[in-house]
C-alpha cells in the first residue's frame, strides 16, 4: 500500500513536470519550414524498394541503377547546381514495412519527394500518408490505376504505362498475329492482375476471356492455375505477373509439356532476369515471349548505349538488364522534372512542372502527364525474344477507352549526354 501511494505521488510529479516541459518544448508541433530536403547544393529524395524478400530478386537492381544515374548527373555538376542524394530504404515488398520506412524517409530524413516507390500493395499503403503530408509522390513504380486520381491524390504520379494499357496492347497483338487466338489471363490477385484483365477485356470483350486465373505472391505454386488454362485450350496467355512468377508460370507449363504463346506485362518480362530465374537450361522456353515496353530498352537505342556506359562506370558493371534501363529512366525523368521545377524548386513547383505537360521523358512516346492525367504512357511498344535476345518490333499500340490502335513509335532523341538542361 505504501509503495502504491509513493508511486502515485511520483507519477503526479512526473505529470506536472511533463506539462511544464510541454510549454517549453513542443517537438511535435507542426512548423512552417523552408522546403524540406532542399538546400543550396543538395536535393534529398527517397524511395522504398524490395531489396530483400520475395520480390527482391526481380527488382532490387532498379534502385541501384537509379542511384548510378544520379551519381553520373552529380559528377556532371548536378541539376541547377544541386547534387541529388537518393535514399533507398528496403521494405521487403511488405506493406507494413513500407509504412514504417516511408515515415522514416519523410520525418527522419526529411526528403523533398518520394521517387519511384515500388509496388502496388506496398505503395497503396502510404498513398494517404504522403497526400496528407503534401509530399510529392513522383513516378510510382507500378501501373495501377490508383496513381491516376488527380482530384484525390494531386501529388501522385505513376511511372509505368498503366496495366490496362499493357493488357489491351498485349491482347490486341495476340489478335493481330493470330485471329483465332484463345486469349487467357494469369494475374496477380491485386490491382496489377485486375488492370491487365481489364485491358484484355477491352480488346476481346467483357467476359470473353477464355480462362482467367489469379495467384498470390505468398504462394509459390501456380500448377493448379496453369493446369486449368491448359485444360481450357488457351493459345495465348496474357500474364499480369512479376518477374518471379512469369518464370514460375513459363517453367511450370514447360514441365507440363505445354508451350503456348506468352504475352507478358513489362513488369514481369525482363529477359535477363527471367533467364536468371529459369537457369540456362530453362531459357529456351522463353523463346518467342512477347512483351510490351515503353522505355528505350533496346540495344539499338542511344539511351541504351548511354545507360550501358553509366552502368559500367557507376554501377560496378552490374549485369545490364531491363531493370537497368528502367532505373536509369526513372532517374532521368526525375532529373528532367527537377530541372523544370526552376532555380529554387518547391514541392508545389515540381508537381506543377510534371503537370505542365512539358516533360518528354525518354520513352517510346512522349510523356502524357497533364493536370488531369497522372500517367506517363498511353503508348507501348511490342518486344519479342528472338534467338535469346529481347528487342522491339515495329509494332506499337496507343490505348484509349475505345481499345488499342496501332501507331508508329516515336522515341525521344538523346540530347546533352542524358543530362536535362536546367
Amino acid at each position: 500500500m505504501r509503495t502504491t501511494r509513493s508511486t502515485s505521488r511520483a507519477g503526479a510529479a512526473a505529470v506536472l513536470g511533463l506539462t511544464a516541459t510541454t510549454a517549453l518544448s513542443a517537438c511535435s508541433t507542426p512548423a512552417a519550414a523552408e522546403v524540406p530536403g532542399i538546400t543550396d547544393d543538395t536535393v534529398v529524395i527517397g524511395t522504398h524498394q524490395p531489396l530483400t524478400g520475395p520480390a527482391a530478386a526481380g527488382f532490387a537492381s532498379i534502385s541501384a541503377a537509379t542511384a548510378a544515374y544520379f551519381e553520373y548527373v552529380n559528377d556532371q555538376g548536378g541539376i541547377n547546381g544541386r547534387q541529388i542524394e537518393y535514399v533507398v530504404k528496403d521494405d521487403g515488398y511488405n506493406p507494413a514495412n513500407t509504412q514504417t520506412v516511408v515515415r522514416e524517409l519523410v520525418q527522419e530524413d526529411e526528403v523533398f519527394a518520394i521517387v519511384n516507390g515500388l509496388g502496388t500493395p506496398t505503395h497503396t499503403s502510404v498513398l494517404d500518408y504522403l497526400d496528407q503530408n503534401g509530399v510529392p509522390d513522383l513516378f510510382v513504380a507500378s501501373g495501377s490505376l490508383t496513381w491516376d486520381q488527380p482530384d484525390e491524390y494531386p501529388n501522385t504520379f505513376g511511372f509505368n504505362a498503366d496495366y490496362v494499357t499493357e493488357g489491351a496492347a498485349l491482347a490486341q497483338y495476340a489478335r493481330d498475329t493470330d485471329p483465332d487466338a484463345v486469349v487467357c489471363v494469369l494475374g496477380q490477385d491485386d490491382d496489377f492482375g485486375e488492370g491487365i484483365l481489364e485491358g484484355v477485356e477491352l480488346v476481346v470483350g467483357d467476359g470473353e476471356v477464355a480462362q482467367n486465373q489469379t495467384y498470390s505472391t505468398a504462394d509459390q505454386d501456380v500448377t493448379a492455375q496453369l493446369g486449368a488454362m491448359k485444360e481450357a485450350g488457351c493459345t495465348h496467355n496474357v500474364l499480369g505477373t512479376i518477374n518471379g512468377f512469369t518464370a514460375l508460370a513459363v517453367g511450370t507449363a514447360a514441365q507440363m509439356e505445354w508451350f503456348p504463346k506468352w504475352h507478358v506485362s513489362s513488369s514481369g518480362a525482363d529477359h535477363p532476369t527471367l533467364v536468371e530465374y529459369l537457369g540456362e537450361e530453362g531459357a529456351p522456353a522463353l523463346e518467342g515471349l512477347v512483351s510490351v515496353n515503353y522505355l528505350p530498352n533496346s540495344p539499338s537505342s542511344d539511351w541504351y548505349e548511354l545507360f550501358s556506359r553509366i552502368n559500367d562506370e557507376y554501377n560496378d558493371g552490374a549485369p545490364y538488364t531491363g531493370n537497368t534501363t528502367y532505373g536509369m529512366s526513372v532517374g532521368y525523368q526525375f532529373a528532367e522534372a527537377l530541372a523544370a521545377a526552376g532555380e529554387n524548386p518547391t514541392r508545389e513547383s515540381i508537381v506543377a512542372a510534371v503537370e505542365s505537360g512539358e516533360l518528354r521523358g525518354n520513352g517510346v512516346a512522349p510523356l502524357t502527364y497533364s493536370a488531369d492525367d497522372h500517367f506517363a504512357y498511353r503508348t507501348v511498344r511490342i518486344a519479342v525474344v528472338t534467338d535469346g535476345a529481347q528487342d522491339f518490333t515495329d509494332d506499337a499500340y496507343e490505348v484509349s477507352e475505345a481499345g488499342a490502335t496501332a501507331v508508329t513509335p516515336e522515341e525521344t532523341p538523346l540530347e546533352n549526354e542524358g543530362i536535362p538542361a536546367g
Partner: protein
Amino acid sequence: MRTHGTRLLLRAGLLTLLALGATFLLDPYRNYQLATSAGVFAAVAGLTLLVGLTGQLSLGHAVLMAAGGYGYALTATRVTEALEGTGAADGIVGWLVPLLAGVAGAVVAAGLLGTLLGLAAARLRGPYLTGLTLALVIALPSAAGIVPGLAGAQGVSAPFVPVPDALATLIAVEQWHAWLAILVTACAVTPLVALRSGRAGLRMRAVHDDETAARLAGIDPGRVKAGAFVISSLAAGLGGVVLAIATQQVSPGAYGLGFSLLLVVAAVVGGLGSLGGAALGAVLVTLLPWLVDQATAGLPADLGHRLQGNLEIVLFGVVVIVVTVLWPGGLARLVPKNTPLSQNTER
C-alpha cells in the same frame, strides 16, 4: 473492493496522462513509434495474461490483432461513407463516430474469433492449442485472399482520423494518433489489470495450477480457459485497432508469423504474467528492428541488405536467451515491485 477499484482507475488515469504528456517530448516519428508500441503493448498484455495466468500458449495473437484491425477498418469505412453528404460529416462527429463504430466492430470481430478459439482452448491442451493458433497465422494470407472484402495481400485501408481543429496548431498528426493509441490501449489494458487482481485472476491461477483441484473447488476449468482466451483476444483486437489508426491500413503482411512470434518474445522477455513487463517487451520489439536498421545503415550496401531483416531475428533470439538465463522472471523483475498486481504473481 471499492477502494481497490478506485485506486486502480486512478492509477490507470495517471499513467495515461503521463503517457499523453510524454508525447510532447517526442518528434513525429518517435510518436509514430510510440503509437505502434502502444498497439503491440495491448496485444502483448492480453497474451502475457493468457500464458502467465492460465498457461495457454497462443502463437496466433497476430491474427487476433488482424481481426481487430479488419473489424475496425471495415466498420469505420462504412460509417464514414454513410456519414458523407450528411451535415455530420464535418467537424468532430465526422471522425469520432466512425472511430467509435470501428472500435465496436473490432471488438465484435476479435471477440467472435476469440470465442471460437476459446471454445477450442477449453478442449485442447498444451501443444494442440499452440498448434491450432500457429496454423491460424499461417492461414491468414490465404484467408485474406479468399474472404471477400479483405482484399488479399493489398489489404484494406482504414479512414484517416484528422487532428481536431482545436488542436491543429498545437500538435502534429502523429502525436494526435499517439494520443488515440494511448487511450485505446488504456481501455484495453485497464480491464486486464482489474481482472488479474480480482476473482477471475484467482480462478485462472487455480485452473493453471491444478485443474482437478480447481474443479473440486467448484470452478469450471473449461469456462475459465475459454473466458481468458476471449478477454485476451479482445485486448489483441484493440491492439489491432491502434495499428490501424496509426497506419490507416490493415494487410496480412503486417500480421505474419514473424510478428506473431515477436509478440510471444515480448511477453517472455517482459516476464510472463506481468503487464509492466509486457509494456517493456512491446517497446523492445518495436524499437529493436529500427535500431538494427540504424546500426547497419553505415555498412556497405551489399552487406547491409544481407543483414537487414535477418540480424534482428538473431538479436531477438540472443535477447530471449540472455534474459531467461539472467532474469528468468523477465525484465519486469528488474524493476522494483511497486504494484499490488506484481506482488500477486510473486506469491
